[in-house]
């Protein structure tokens, strides 16, 4: 009794200590297990892509047109170029609008108009991409009476809008208010403060958002089925139907032919690599340099 009170119980054997240690261990193992469960599909997906598609990757895959069944060789050059057209045009339309909307929400958005825009962006990000495809089919494809690069790009641009808008807003909100005040206190006008200081500071985050959105639309298939359709030849005009990697992968994958299957794997691997390279390049291009 007296020994325990002198040491305040600090030296006594404590059954709850072992229990606490066990809880800590269990929690740690639980977290590690969750990480493994999360990474496993990613790893196995990459492994399937490389093992089944690696052999099909060749220069021809990106430069040659598909050949009729039975012939050897051929590629998906039309799909690769078509994806480039679609994603490029969609980015040209979608990125400026989305980034400017994000700036509006962050810098001028504490109004009813801001709340309305924010709500619309959230609703839009929850709309299935195939619905966007149907919408564009109704407002672009039907009046033009044809599938086209333009229609496909519009559908993809709509899909990228909400992601970029909300990331831009969040990234600008992370810029400390002290920097806004510093610039305003130097007699810098509001818009130039936004354009030169805030966007510059938030740029890496905004670029990450843009890369994610581009990665997402590059792999979209459903909205292209009713808008860009497909094309077994090179696309020359922006109002012609166009092939794209995801649609071609889809077509080839559901076909019964093994050459097509292996080309589909190759194209899928190529798509992942292109997105990876784009993301890394974007990160590299926007890192801060000091002069």
């Amino acid at each position: 009794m007296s020994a325990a009170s002198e040491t305040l119980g600090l030296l006594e054997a404590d059954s709850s200590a072992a229990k606490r240690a066990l809880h800590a261990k269990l929690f740690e193992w639980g977290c590690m297990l969750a990480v493994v469960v999360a990474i496993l599909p990613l790893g196995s997906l990459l492994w399937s892509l490389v093992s089944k598609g690696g052999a099909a990757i060749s220069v021809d895959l990106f430069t040659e047109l598909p050949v009729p069944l039975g012939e050897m060789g051929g590629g998906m050059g039309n799909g690769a170029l078509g994806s480039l057209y679609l994603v490029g045009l969609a980015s040209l339309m979608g990125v400026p609008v989305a980034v400017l909307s994000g700036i509006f929400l962050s810098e001028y958005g504490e109004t009813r108009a801001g709340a309305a825009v924010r709500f619309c962006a959230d609703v839009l990000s929850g709309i299935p991409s195939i619905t966007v495809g149907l919408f564009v089919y109704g407002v672009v494809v039907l009046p033009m009476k044809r599938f086209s690069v333009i229609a496909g790009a519009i559908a993809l641009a709509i899909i990228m809008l909400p992601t970029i808008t909300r990331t831009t807003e969040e990234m600008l909100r992370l810029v400390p208010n002290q920097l806004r005040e510093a610039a305003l206190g130097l007699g810098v006008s509001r818009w130039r403060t936004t354009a030169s200081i805030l966007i510059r500071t938030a740029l890496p985050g905004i670029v990450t958002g843009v890369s994610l959105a581009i990665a997402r639309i590059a792999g979209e298939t459903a909205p292209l089925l009713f808008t860009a359709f497909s094309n077994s030849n090179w696309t020359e005009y922006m109002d012609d139907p166009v092939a794209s990697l995801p649609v071609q992968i889809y077509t080839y994958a559901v076909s019964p032919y093994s050459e097509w299957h292996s080309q589909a794997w190759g194209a899928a691997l190529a798509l992942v690599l292109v997105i990876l390279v784009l993301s890394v390049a974007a990160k590299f291009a926007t890192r801060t340099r000091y002069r």
Partner: protein
Amino acid sequence: MQMMTIQSPASLKPRLQVATSAPSSAREQVLALDSGAQLSVTELRAGFGASEVIKGLTMAIDPRATTAIIGPSGCGKSTFIRCLNRMHEVTPGAFVGGRVELNGVDVYDSRVDPVRVRRRIGMVFQKPNPFPSMSVRDNVLAGLKLNRVKIGNVEEVVESSLRSVALWDEVKDKLKQPGTSLSGGQQQRLCIARSIALKPEVLLMDEPCSALDPIATARIEELISELRQHYTIVIVTHNMHQAARIAQKTAFFFMGELIEYDETDVIFTRPSQKQTEDYVTGRFG
């Protein structure tokens, strides 16, 4: 876009520009600005939404001197100096009424662009806030570049601005490093240099040393004593010893009102108001 040209720092004449259509009396007032900057505040009322923080405050601030604003937390010190360069109105829900005259021109006149007021009345904030995306050098030039001011000799502007805040010797080999890589005290001096590069008439300082250690504080105080020979300085401080060390005049604020305003040694040794005496002797606040 208004363009200004700087050939050399010395040749820059301070001026507050009003719309060219201003009547001749206003233009004469503008010309009067060349003779040193005097701030005077008349019946200033300001606050946020329904709460009035500054309740009808009148005071004249001496040119080329340091004026300290002291008072307990929440007495409106910061709001007050943010009214002087029209920074208060940037906060959503803020309101301002009354007059703030810079050499006789009301900065709240409808013809006056707040952006131009802030170029003439520089501000240094509580926490050092260099631009993290810019190097030391670009931070000094930030005000000039962002305002599209043509800079004659860039290196000279950088060096003279950094010298005037006694930072040149410490950072001359680090000009290309990020502004945020400097120590807290150096960052604050960098921010002062950034303001000075614009050649303002008045420098407002909102507790510029509250985030700094005693040695860095001593350097900034030394700097303020030198700068007041060229600039009108208004400094908000929580530290009464600091006010006593650097200010020629001191104003005691309480609950949004100016209780007493006099020579600094009068405020600290023989104040005429009971509230001032209680505050400076540490009985409250």
